């Protein structure tokens, strides 16, 4: 017990050291594109969540290709498995690489404290998609690496076997289709991936897809019920609830396995899964490994139409940013621009390039063929949205409330759809009122 005052003094000293470190001026806080590639020099450390691409040498290949244009720049990679958790802690220091992906937990208003300015909205926003997600008072602080849409990955053979040829146009139609799969085939119509949890978070991406409203995300940042009748979330969460309630999903959700689910859908043991378009390539890979035709993996939009057209929301993946304390900002910026414009990274991953006007990946060809309309959501109120989401502990983009929804639907927890969503809506509006919206 005698150690207590000493420990507190030590803690105070450490805290003071931690807080006082940020004052040294590292020079300009801008990271603008360098005019002459040959004149850029320096070493750039890139933090990435794609540890697989670092270990298998893919990132090294990109770096070598980059060096051909920028001979004076050396790029090094740091693959981080627990990206969110680790980078968040490192951001309490100045040492978080030169180029990094903005962790989701960083509040947008804090961007200028951590990241260098990449240019004004008028200059950068004209060239790239999704810039308003990272714009603070007219300046852009992050550029999305690539974009994706959300939809149902499905096994075409299973659907054909159940006599289904058309994409359903309503949630009820979708349920009927799953019922037909259950009745006519051996497949599990839908796989929730409940145990791993994170695949459930992609259900948040229905926001905007149902109503085809570009302001749908901003509208959530208020005290109104996010699950009101006719809303995007009501349609999405309602569909998930009914799929489970009608026993159209796997019998024991608590022991699902993400890696196994790829093989299950590829071999026709599972009929469908709601996932981002990035998953298509992985499922096709799984089909190849199982000796099946990759073309059996299909992709369809959320079953809802506005004026006879499906709507699909293009949403950004992680955004690249330059550390405001970086000593080689021009080189860091050069790497980001090269990755987005020249590397071909998005195409290689069947993802949507964030350069405006770039063609869509081939995986989304069925969407364009069927006249699916692509929209980008306004992110003007993203700051307030996150504030309400955290304060209310609802976690709209987290797995917990949807796991709860699945539990209630399968009768493993008390309540019904209305009681679960009603309780969430109550928490949401209380937090929204406190947050002053």
């Amino acid at each position, binding site marked *: 017990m005698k150690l207590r005052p000493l420990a507190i003094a*030590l803690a105070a000293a450490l805290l003071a050291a931690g807080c006082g470190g940020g004052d040294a001026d590292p020079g300009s806080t801008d990271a603008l594109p360098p005019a002459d590639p040959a004149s850029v020099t320096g070493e750039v450390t890139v933090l990435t969540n794609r540890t697989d691409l670092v270990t298998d040498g893919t990132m090294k290949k990109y770096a070598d290709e980059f060096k051909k244009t920028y001979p004076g720049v050396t790029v090094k990679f740091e693959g981080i498995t627990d990206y969110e*958790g680790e980078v968040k802690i490192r951001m309490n220091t100045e040492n978080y690489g030169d180029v990094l992906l903005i962790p989701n937990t960083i509040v947008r208003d804090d961007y200028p404290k951590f990241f260098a300015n990449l240019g004004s909205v008028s200059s950068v926003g004209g060239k790239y998609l999704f810039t308003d997600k990272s714009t603070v008072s007219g300046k852009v602080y992050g550029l999305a690496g690539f974009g994706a849409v959300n939809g149902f990955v499905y096994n075409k053979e299973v659907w054909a076997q159940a006599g289904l040829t058309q994409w359903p146009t309503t949630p009820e139609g979708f349920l009927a289709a799953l019922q037909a799969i259950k009745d006519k085939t051996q497949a599990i119509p839908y796989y929730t991936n409940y145990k791993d949890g994170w695949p459930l978070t992609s259900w948040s991406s229905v926001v905007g897809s149902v109503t085809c409203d570009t302001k749908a995300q901003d509208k959530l940042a208020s005290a109104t019920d996010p699950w009101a009748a006719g809303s995007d979330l009501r349609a999405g969460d309602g569909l998930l609830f009914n799929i489970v309630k009608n026993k159209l999903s796997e019998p024991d959700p608590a022991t699902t*396995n993400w890696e196994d689910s790829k093989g299950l859908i590829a071999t026709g043991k599972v009929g469908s899964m709601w996932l981002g378009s990035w998953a298509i390539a992985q499922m096709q890979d799984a089909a190849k490994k199982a000796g099946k035709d990759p073309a059996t993996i299909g992709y369809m939009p959320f079953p809802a139409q506005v004026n006879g057209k499906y709507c699909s929301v293009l949403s950004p993946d992680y955004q690249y940013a330059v550390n405001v304390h970086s000593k080689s900002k021009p080189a860091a910026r050069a790497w980001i621009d090269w990755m987005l414009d020249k590397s071909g990274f998005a195409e290689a991953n069947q993802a949507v390039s964030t350069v405006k006007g770039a063609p869509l990946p081939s995986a989304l060809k069925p969407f364009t063929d069927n006249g699916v309309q692509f929209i980008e959501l306004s992110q003007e109120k993203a700051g307030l949205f996150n504030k309400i989401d*955290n304060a209310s502990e609802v976690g709209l983009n987290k797995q917990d409330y949807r796991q709860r929804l699945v*539990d209630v639907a399968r009768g493993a927890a008390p309540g019904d759809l209305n009681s679960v969503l009603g309780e969430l809506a109550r928490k949401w509006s209380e937090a929204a009122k406190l947050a002053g919206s």
Partner: protein
Amino acid sequence: MTSRPAAGGFFAAMAKRRPQLTAWLYLAAALALLITFTYVPVASMIWYSFTNWDGVSPDPQFVGWSNYGQLFSRPELFQVFFVSLYYLVASFVQIVLALYFAVVLSFSTWFRNLFKGVLFFPYLINGVAVAFIFLYFFRQGGTLDSVLAFFGVHTGQFWLGDPDWVNVSLSGVSVWRFLGLNFVLFLGAIQSIPQELHEAASLDGASRWQVFRHIIAPGIKPVLSLSVILAISGSLSVFEIPYIMTGGSGESLTFVIQTVKLAFQFNKMGLASAAAVVLLAMVLLITWLQRRLVPEERTDLT
């Protein structure tokens, strides 16, 4: 040692002059580690519990007792302690089993060392690996179902998916994993009982039960009471196994998982620190109560 007479001479001289300084030198490494990795983090945690820090923001604000106020005005945050009861019951089952095996294996039996190894082995396996092993064990048509089917039992039970069963299954894993630790503690205590006492008892014609009741039980009382404290504090702070196996879904949420979620999902580092401080206080209180109710006494067997 002859190659470094100077150093030896220095220490010897110092030890002669200031014996207490040498003692501190020996303690220094352990103290430095203890302070850096235990007391400093605890002090910072207590400090965070009085702020609204979100985990990244460079300028947390001091908010006084408001985190504690919020914590105690939300009874649902404490409801999760109900889950701890499952683990508490399991801990007592574990202590009884460990005691049984320790006593049996302290007498000479066939394959004694093999059984000791078998019982202790699970404790050596990394918790993450244990969780993964049991994910396969509990899944539908997994090991458990296959073994039951071999005996003609077809339950169709979802061992992790059924809210009435999930905590039983998970605490079962915990018993499997920590049985070995209790067992070794008990075995060590039993073997430190002087052999003459056993000999005297057998000369007097004492039965196995009498030996246990009058020699072994009083001999291991301090270890038994330590095990009870560990069991209670362990049940209050269950984390690893349910976090990996179910992520706290279903009805398996524990207080620590809930705290981690507050801190890292909702960025309420201040509130989560307050919750952790409360848990620490509870464990200290229970330990103190337990020490008061069962005072440590020097058992003298002779």
